[in-house]
């Protein structure tokens, strides 16, 4: 085989980078990974916050274009009748034949049920009663809640009735020389309630993020790392590429770190994409009026540190579990439910009061990182808390890497059930 080509032995770091680069190229060339790891996280919040409301608006506009028929039983006052105008309703007036409670449908139920032949979408029953008010009425609207058109007819009718009711109240108050505000709002907040909040827009934005970011980071880091972790370990075993890779002079720890770096990169890009999508959607909904969150440099650094430590911890655990699995299917069936182990505590920690919080919370795995992220975003810098979550998170991350490294040194890594 002639001349030995080896010129210099590459450093551990350069070998790690070679592995990482190759794995990233492999990810990028798989459209499913790009879709699942980049596009979906980027689009999910804009889809929920922008596209869904737009869709619902369109559906509502479509519903309002239908001409619906209302049967009014009893005397229809002119002032109510005027409120039916412009609501795309056909009003049929009939006599009120009910003597008891107006809500009891009686034989009208058959007329309204879906498939009824009379094409009446709702029935408004009205009965005037004596009172000290300018006028007083009992009413009921009969409708079929399983029929979309009947529900829409009820909504339009109710809206007209409530508007009319407001007028009746105003008229009664006027007869007694009172205004609506005097009668219903005698203890009145002066000015705008939002103006009285001394928190700046940036503080409010930071508080809002404190509710979202830990959850997004925990959910997406854990879920985004699953597929690549499986692909780079159990997947390689199944495809037979692991044996050839282990035959190279690269130390197994370097291979593991290279793979870990690739998975962590993909997971971080995924999380950042989701956060960017979230900020874009919120900014869009607030008409571009979203203020930049007021987070200090220390807060940003602590936030990044906590995210990195969490990513090290989670990705190492998922790689280790995936290495232990004997097949891709087995790895998937273990790692899927395992996500709950990370998301559960994160969700729980969102409801823990930061005021007067006990220090031991910052020792518990996952809880500590979630609370650290919340404190960093809220501008709370307690040295005891920081020392506790930093040291314990670092210890958990090192333990996870050690365990992953141990799994990656297993002799049966070249074998698979398939």
């Amino acid at each position, binding site marked *: 085989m002639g001349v*030995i080509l*080896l010129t210099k032995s*590459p450093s551990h770091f350069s070998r790690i980078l070679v592995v990482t680069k190759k794995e990233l190229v492999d990810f990028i060339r798989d459209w499913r990974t790009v879709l699942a790891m980049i596009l979906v996280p980027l689009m999910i919040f804009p889809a929920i916050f922008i596209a869904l409301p737009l869709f619902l608006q369109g559906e509502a506009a479509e519903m309002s274009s239908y001409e619906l028929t209302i049967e009014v039983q009893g005397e229809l006052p002119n002032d109510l009748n005027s409120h039916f105008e412009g609501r795309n309703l056909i009003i049929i007036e009939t006599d009120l034949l009910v003597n008891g409670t107006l809500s009891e449908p009686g034989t009208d139920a058959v007329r309204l049920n879906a498939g009824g032949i009379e094409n009446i979408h709702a029935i408004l029953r009205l009965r005037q009663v004596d009172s000290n008010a300018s006028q007083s009425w009992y009413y009921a609207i009969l409708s079929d809640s399983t029929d979309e058109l009947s529900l829409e007819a009820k909504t339009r009718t109710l809206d007209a009735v409530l508007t009319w009711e407001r007028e009746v109240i105003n008229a009664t108050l006027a007869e007694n020389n009172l205004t609506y505000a005097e009668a219903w709002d005698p203890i009145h907040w002066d000015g705008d309630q939002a103006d009285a909040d001394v928190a700046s827009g940036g503080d409010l934005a930071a508080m809002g993020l404190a509710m979202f970011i830990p959850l997004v980071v925990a959910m997406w880091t854990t879920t985004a790392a699953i597929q690549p972790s499986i692909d780079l370990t159990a997947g390689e075993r199944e*495809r037979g590429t692991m044996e*050839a890779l282990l035959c190279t002079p690269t130390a197994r720890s370097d291979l593991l770190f290279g793979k870990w770096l690739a998975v962590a990169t993909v997971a971080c890009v995924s999380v950042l994409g989701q956060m960017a999508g979230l900020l874009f959607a919120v900014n869009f909904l607030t008409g571009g009026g979203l203020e930049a969150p007021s987070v200090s440099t220390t807060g940003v650094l602590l936030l990044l540190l906590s995210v990195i430590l969490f990513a090290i911890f989670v990705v190492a655990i998922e790689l280790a579990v995936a290495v232990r699995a004997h097949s891709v299917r087995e790895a998937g069936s273990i790692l899927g439910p395992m996500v709950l182990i990370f998301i559960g505590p994160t969700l729980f920690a969102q409801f823990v009061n930061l005021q007067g919080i006990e220090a031991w919370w910052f020792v518990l795995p996952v809880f500590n990182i979630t609370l650290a992220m919340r404190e960093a975003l809220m501008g709370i810098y307690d040295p005891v808390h920081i020392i506790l979550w930093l040291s314990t998170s670092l210890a958990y991350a090192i333990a996870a890497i050690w365990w992953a490294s141990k799994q990656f040194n297993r002799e049966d890594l070249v074998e698979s059930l398939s």
Partner: protein
Amino acid sequence: MGEALLKVADVTKTFADVTALSTVSVDFNAGEVVGLVGGNGAGKTTLLRLLCGLYQPSTGTVRGIVDENPVDIHKMREHVGVVPEATGLYARLTAWENIRYHSRLNGIDDDMAWTRTERFAKLLNFDQDLHRSTRGFSRGMRQKTALLRALSHGPKILLLDEPTGGLDVTSARMVRKLVRKLGDEGGTVIYSTHNLAEAQQVCDRIVIIHNGTLRADGSPAELISSTGCDDLEEAYVALTEDVSRIDSPAENEGRIARAWRRLLTRGGDSSD
């Protein structure tokens, strides 16, 4: 032949309750093409994996020799090129990218690796396919890619695990010719096969493994003459007839795979 490059001394390898190799001792010397011959489950792949450090011996030692100094088998890896039976190619990379990935891990400059790869690819009539994605490659094309990958860093020793298994006649012939050429140029090749005709054609020396034990070690002519047979096939049968063995050939087949399966389903660690 030259000095020993790999020394296997009293090696036994067990998986759970199955002994895959039992007290095997053999040296592999510089400049020879050695055929590891044996039936399915004889222990050939286990020995190859011990030679490249994927497995650790249960007892005994496997040593590499570099510049007349014994080295740990892991240190020997940069001098070894391996073609595993499964070839192990990444489907989303081209043939050249697969080769380059391994050559980079071996510390080889891309230009140097390309020069060497192109030279051997021409010998295998594969140079036009180097930039094609390996997805959809035939078995022969995969085998050629794996062979080029193993050669890209200029190893002193080439370990081939049944490199012609499943290949068509033309591809198998090309692989054999390349191996013979490497041997003629002074390279060391350890070549696992259960094809006796192929072993006789390609190898300077044949090591017969049967039921995890070394049964014979010598040139094809020596094996034939030592058994008094007319050809290598008869010599092989004579050397592997074993009235004392417990396992029948049918039982023996796949016994290591079964042992691994038992280990895997238990999830037990093995030493490394």
